[in-house]
């Protein structure tokens, strides 16, 4: 039965994606003077040369990490809306540690930079986790509020104490030393090495969720908290642990973006990242492999959108429309099990 459910899930997700893309194409037909070229740019060109393909890989890297971050929390029945904030903290810490701990040996410095970013994300998320665990303060509210704090504090700091005097009109920190930057993977795959970290995390999170004691506990808490509590699970610890893992992944995503792409912290440089993470987790039904696929699809559309904007009269915001249609289709599908569950609960009540 569970297997069946999974299959229909995958089927309806694929179907939703196809429908959304078709509707997107329809929209292009309506608004564009050169619809065929636009559609080709959006859907075919991203795979036409290695430059675009590497571009996709670079785009997919942070998406995978923030998607995993959100899905870990969702799976435990918690809403980490603070992916964005944790991402900025991770990126900020990377830039700080990269710029200001330069006295260290190079190898150690790389390790410290990562550690700083991950710890930043972990600690920042744990604040919300602890408030939830010990005072039952709604994590949606706290994480959203913490997003503002993270965005504004990093922005303020970058604008004042840590601003690169040579940055001209751009609000950013100094560029980090070159040896910290991610290298290109090979002469053919010119994408940065961050993708390897992201893929490793997919495997790790998969193991955590599907094959570990902790994963079982997290899922049980997510499915029925009272049952978990009655079974002797420590809900407080699991809640905090879940936020820590989620925050750590978001922090890592921020770090990878700085080390691989931007080489510095720019003020509010990736404002849609948190939202993308949440949506990817939602569309992937919180499954790590699903996160990988959906992230790839998102990255593909992003690159396709860019090409379309360069080559034709359609702006890349069209990609947003496709994404939104997809979300609507998939979340309406998600209502079905919810409705079934309610119906079931009613039945139980009726028949005792």
């Amino acid at each position, binding site marked *: 039965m*569970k297997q069946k459910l999974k299959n229909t899930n995958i089927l309806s997700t694929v179907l939703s994606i196809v429908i959304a893309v078709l509707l997107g194409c329809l929209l292009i037909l309506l608004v564009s003077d050169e619809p065929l070229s636009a559609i080709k740019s959006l859907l075919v060109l991203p795979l036409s040369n290695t430059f675009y393909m590497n571009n996709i890989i670079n785009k997919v890297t942070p998406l995978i990490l923030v998607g995993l971050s959100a899905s870990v929390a969702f799976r435990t029945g918690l809403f980490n809306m603070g992916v964005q904030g944790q991402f900025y903290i991770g990126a900020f810490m990377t830039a700080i540690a990269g710029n200001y701990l330069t006295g260290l040996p190079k190898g150690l410095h790389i390790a410290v930079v990562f550690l700083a970013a991950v710890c930043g994300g972990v600690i920042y998320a744990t604040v919300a986790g602890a408030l939830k665990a010990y005072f039952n303060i709604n994590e949606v509210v706290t994480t959203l509020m913490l997003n503002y704090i993270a965005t504004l504090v990093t922005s303020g700091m970058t604008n004042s104490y840590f601003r690169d005097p040579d940055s001209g009109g751009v609000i950013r920190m100094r560029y980090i030393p070159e040896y910290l930057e991610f290298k290109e993977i090979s002469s053919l795959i010119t994408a940065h090495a961050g993708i390897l970290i992201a893929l490793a995390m997919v495997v790790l999170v998969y193991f955590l969720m599907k094959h570990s004691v902790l994963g079982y506990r997290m899922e049980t808490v997510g499915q029925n908290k009272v049952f978990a509590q009655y079974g002797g699970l420590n809900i407080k610890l699991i809640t905090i642990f879940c936020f820590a893992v989620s925050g750590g992944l978001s922090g890592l995503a921020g770090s990878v973006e700085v080390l691989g792409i931007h080489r510095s912290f720019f003020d509010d440089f990736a404002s849609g990242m948190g939202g993308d993470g949440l949506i990817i987790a939602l569309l992937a039904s919180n499954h790590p492999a699903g996160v990988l696929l959906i992230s790839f699809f998102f990255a593909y559309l992003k690159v396709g959108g860019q090409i379309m904007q360069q080559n034709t009269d359609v702006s890349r915001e069209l990609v947003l429309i496709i994404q939104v249609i997809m979300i609507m289709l998939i979340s309406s599908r998600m209502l079905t099990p919810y409705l079934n*569950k309610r119906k079931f609960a009613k039945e139980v009540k009726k028949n005792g």
Partner: protein
Amino acid sequence: MDTDIQNVIEMKDMYKIYPNGTVANSGVNFCVKKGEIHALVGENGAGKTTLMKVLFGLEEKTKGAVYISGKEVNFKSPKEAIANGMGMVHQEFMLVPSYTVAQNIALGNEKTKKIFCDRKSEKEQMEKISKQFGLAADFDEPVYRLSVGAKQRIEILKVLYNNAKIIILDEPTAVLTPQETEELFCSLRLMVKDGYTIVLITHKIKEVMDISDSVTVLRNGQTIKTLKTGETNPDEITRLMIGRQLKPKRERVECKDGKTIFEVSHLNVMDRRGALKVRDMSFAIKAGEIFGIAGVEGNGQSELIDAIIGFLKPSSGRIFYNGKDITGISTSDFRKESIGYIPDDRNLRGSSLTQSVAENFIICSHNSGKFNKGPYLNWKEVRKDARDLIAEYEIKADSETALVGSMSGGNVQKVIVAREISKKPNLLIACQPTRGVDISSIEYIHNKIIEQRNEGTAVLLISAELTEIMGLSDKIGMLYNGELVAVRDNDDSVTENEIGKYILNGRQNPSGTEE
């Protein structure tokens, strides 16, 4: 045709298939004669309630014909049914708590004098009905202050006030004590004498024998047989209901002088709002002994259990397990002991409906080393173990990965029982272990509990079902208002009536009547 005993209700070849594909009725025939008490029996899910809902216009039939007093009808809503002289008392009461009894009874059918409500003539009529059928009620009392039994009387009064001649009662005694049940039956007999027709939905065979004139047995959505009650016996009805003979109850082995496994001494527990719910409670359970606590729900049972399992901190008193003081233990530590606990709320506390059977089995054992190597959880092992348990405990599940929520109540309860008993507990705490489950599962669970006792487990049984308490316990504690008002050895001298009096009145007035 004999006009005197014509069929007031006749349902022919009824089918009801729900939109989700559940077949509730498939070819039910159901006839009720005028002026009789007709029992409609069957296990949970046999289709009794659905059939009555179709009759009352709450559900639309898929196929079939319904005749009321010989006239074909097709009620689209309860309103039409009521207009045709039908009335239904549901399992859950449908009263407005803040209204008075009189307002509740008149609701929807107010008498008017010009534009005003004529409360006086309403009340006169109510009092007349109340006196005629022995349904006592205080008409000016707000409903929220009434006991469950009184609320049910109000529901019946309401039906009578609406001029119903055919009255359907859905499991009316599920919430009543033996005394209240007897009172209800007296009223029903009076009503029948007066020409009313009553359909009684129940799964308690004793009641069928006590009060009904005829009985229709449903099984799997079909009519098995309609019988005259006088011409049948409880065994036959049971056999028809479950389709086979009940297994004999497992023999009890006498356990001599087991050592004390569990002890509660002078325990006081307050609920979260600070009201004292368990008062100075003391009892001890030996190995191989079942200690049953009888009591109407809400008399401190849940607070006692919560204190034992570590959900609530007792305000004073001690709890000992195997001589060890476990007062105020955390739930995590409590669940690590070899204590089995079957909670009363099976869908929330007892199981996780959206997870698989296998996942439900390992809630306490997933970290015991049996299924895990450090942080790695071996699902292969978990599933193998789950398959074994499913077979051993005769659980009906598609597979070990089937969601618990897709299973029937009896099977969910079996999953819980299997999990807790497979722990090989020294102490088993069972709260309402058979509430709302079908007869076969009740039989199975009871036998499992006795089997545990025979193997030397101490059992704490908490139940509102007196037959269960009396059928299983070695000792019975009677709980009233958080106090154990009496503790008796369960021998032949203990009667249901005596227990009923204690749990209704406490020790002050064991011979008095309610209120």
